[in-house]
């Protein structure tokens, strides 16, 4: 488990599958997913059995609010997350949550860069990821180096610690 600020990132377990499938199939999460098809229980089970990387349930005040991950693709990792509970959207919790994951990626896994994909119409996610140091390298692909992560984190680390 990863824990900082008032947030726990719990490794995804089999018993969480029904919950995250319901989140993933909701309109508000699905509309920004690269694959927008409805996920059946069988598809989801198969996906879970073949996970390559790290998936965590985001928990705040003992409530499960979303999912965050570092997915291994060939020789690199792609990060992503979603928050299902509206109360935690569009505030600094997003920064706290991804900072925990990025510290895990760069300092515990020893990665030098990670990637993410964001659909072109998801302007808030683009703005958010750029503020974290991600740089666009392709139509929907962005890269965050360890150096850019550290440079950008310096700008808001004290705010995350204080609030």
């Amino acid at each position, binding site marked *: 488990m990863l824990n900082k600020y008032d947030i726990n990132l719990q490794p995804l377990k089999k018993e969480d599958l029904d919950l995250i499938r319901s989140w993933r199939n909701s309109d508000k999460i699905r509309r920004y997913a690269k694959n927008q098809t409805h996920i059946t229980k069988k598809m989801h089970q198969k996906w879970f059995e073949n996970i390559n990387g790290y998936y965590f349930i985001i928990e705040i005040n003992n409530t499960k609010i979303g999912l965050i991950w570092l997915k291994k693709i060939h020789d690199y990792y792609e990060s992503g997350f979603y928050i299902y509970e509206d*109360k935690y*959207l*569009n*505030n*600094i*919790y*997003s*920064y706290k949550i991804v900072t925990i994951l990025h510290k895990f990626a760069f300092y515990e896994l020893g990665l030098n860069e990670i990637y993410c994909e964001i659909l072109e119409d998801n*302007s*808030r996610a683009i*703005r*958010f990821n750029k*503020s974290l140091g991600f740089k666009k390298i392709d139509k929907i692909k962005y890269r965050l180096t360890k150096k850019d992560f550290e440079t950008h984190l310096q700008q*808001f680390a*004290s*705010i995350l610690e*204080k*609030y």
Partner: protein
Amino acid sequence: MTKEEFIEKLSDLLDTEIDENTSLEELEEWDSLAMLGLLSIYDELQVEIDIDEMDDFKNVNDLLKKANLA
């Protein structure tokens, strides 16, 4: 910091023109990055704020009131 300076700073942060009557709920730019920037401004002004209070802000005037600049 004056009221005008606060609004100018917030406007830069949001990258859009605002005034004290601007509704936050209708602003596409009112997102997590804006919240983070706002907390930095309050920090600079030494204004104590609870993160949950931010849910109650409806317009720019509410932000000014919190900063004692209304």
